[in-house]
């Protein structure tokens, strides 16, 4: 049963076709890697999935429900959470607040709850607080709870972004180059972290340039070039795929 179904999606920017008739299915509980040379359209696919850019043609289904061209906050509420290629934390808010904001779509309290703090609002607040702390604990970030997110080291910021995404209890987690800029030790740690999430049954889709990470972490790999899908399959197969090698190294090689 596929959790995410991308059906012949096309996105144009003026004359440029950034994503060209792209289709993919992501099965529940899998880790899928989306790879391809720079400018292949990977991040654009993510932005289409999360509603940041409108789709020109095609449809996107999450668990058979169309989420095509819905507002980003609705898609998030439907269970798609993401991180960004260039970390986008709420830098001047505390680490804890970042995670609590991540849980926004799981809460309901509004103006009334904020001002009058009725029982329901208080209980919700306590639940969110406890959950956020628990997530931070699991990720080894608890000691930084009250630190401003912008003051964390780069590696921890990347990690915090994932924790923030998790707080929304997503069904699908989308990671845009999670290991970018990390040293080998940090990458190692990150991979262990992502594996733990996978073990718990979370479905993950990630863009990554670190081939070692992709090949060891992902069960399926989708390869894009010039906005199109050029290959798809298990990592072993992708490694030797001719089209993929050509896309990365050029035709002559």
């Amino acid at each position, binding site marked *: 049963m596929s959790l995410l179904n991308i059906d012949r999606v096309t996105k144009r920017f003026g004359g440029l076709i950034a994503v060209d008739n792209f289709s993919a299915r992501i099965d529940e509980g899998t880790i899928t890697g989306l790879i391809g040379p720079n400018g292949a359209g990977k991040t654009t696919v993510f*932005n289409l999935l999360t509603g*940041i*850019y409108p789709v020109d043609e095609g449809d996107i289904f999450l668990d058979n429900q169309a989420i095509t061209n819905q507002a980003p906050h609705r898609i998030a509420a439907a269970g798609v959470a993401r991180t960004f290629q260039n970390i986008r934390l709420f830098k001047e808010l505390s680490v804890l607040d970042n995670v609590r904001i991540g849980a926004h779509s799981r809460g309901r309290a509004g103006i009334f709850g904020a001002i009058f703090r009725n029982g329901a609002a208080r209980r919700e607040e306590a639940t969110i607080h406890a959950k956020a702390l628990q997530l931070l604990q699991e990720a080894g970030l608890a000691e930084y709870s009250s630190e401003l997110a912008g003051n964390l080291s780069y590696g921890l910021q990347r990690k915090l972004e994932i924790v923030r995404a998790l707080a929304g209890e997503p069904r699908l987690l989308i990671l845009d180059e999670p290991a970018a800029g990390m040293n080998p030790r940090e990458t190692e740690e990150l991979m262990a972290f992502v594996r733990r999430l996978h073990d718990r049954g979370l479905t993950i889709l990630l863009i990554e340039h670190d081939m070692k990470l992709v090949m060891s972490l992902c069960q399926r790999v989708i390869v894009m070039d010039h906005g199109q899908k050029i290959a798809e399959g298990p990592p072993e197969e992708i490694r030797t795929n001719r089209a993929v090698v050509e896309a990365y190294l050029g035709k002559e090689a």
Partner: protein
Amino acid sequence: MFLEQILNGLAQGSIYALIGIGFALIFGVLGLVHFAHGEVYMIGAFIGFIMITAFHLPVWAALLLAIAGAAIVGFLVELLNFRPLRKAPEYASMICTLGLSVVLQNATMLIWGSDTKSLPLSSENVAFSFFGAKLSMEQILIFTVSLGLMVGLQYILYRSKLGKAIRAIAQNREAAALMGVNINQVIAATFAIGSGLGGAAGVLVGLYYNAFYPTMGFMAGLKAFTATVLGGLTSVPGAVLGGIILGVVENITAAYISSGFRDLVAFVILILVLFIRPSGIFGRGIQEKV
């Protein structure tokens, strides 16, 4: 009567256009609004007034000195208010020039008083009658001077090295810097040019209504900004067209609906344009990068 309102509107519109060009040039190179631009225009008007009354200079000389004076003020504003905030968040320079505008306005008030000053001129000097519509000497002055300045500006923008640099920075500042354009110098020059035009507008308006007062820059600045938004914020021809449209619409409203609505019209246009088509008539669209 109608024709006369159109002529009045064109005169008023030319003023908005001259001020608006400054907004457009500055927004073009920096992507920021110069909130004290209306005060630069007011300072131009006061320089002109002082030159004529205290130094008994002829109008053309006063005009030239006002242009030069306003250009210097504009240069200083860039040096003291914009340059230190190049890397600060967008609102910093906005609030900073907003503060400057309040300071300049009130300082002028402290020095020269808040009352309206006028030149000892004979009023109602109708120069021509034009299909029954009066065309005053001041209006002719406005039309010729603003036309001259706009042609001059086009010459600078499209025929000079400086103009090329200004347009290059407006396209892509980093690339222009890599090509050896001295960014700070060109931005300063842009401020000087835009402010000079504003100063000229100040003198012209002062002569037209024969009224010089410290708060004259506030409304005029806002309206000229509206004109610029109407024209697309970075487009010089857009600012001119926007100014003319605003001037005419305003005068027609004042004449046929109510003079109380004269100022209202500009702000309603401003909000409508920003709501319906924020990129204005000639503007480029705004798109967010992710």
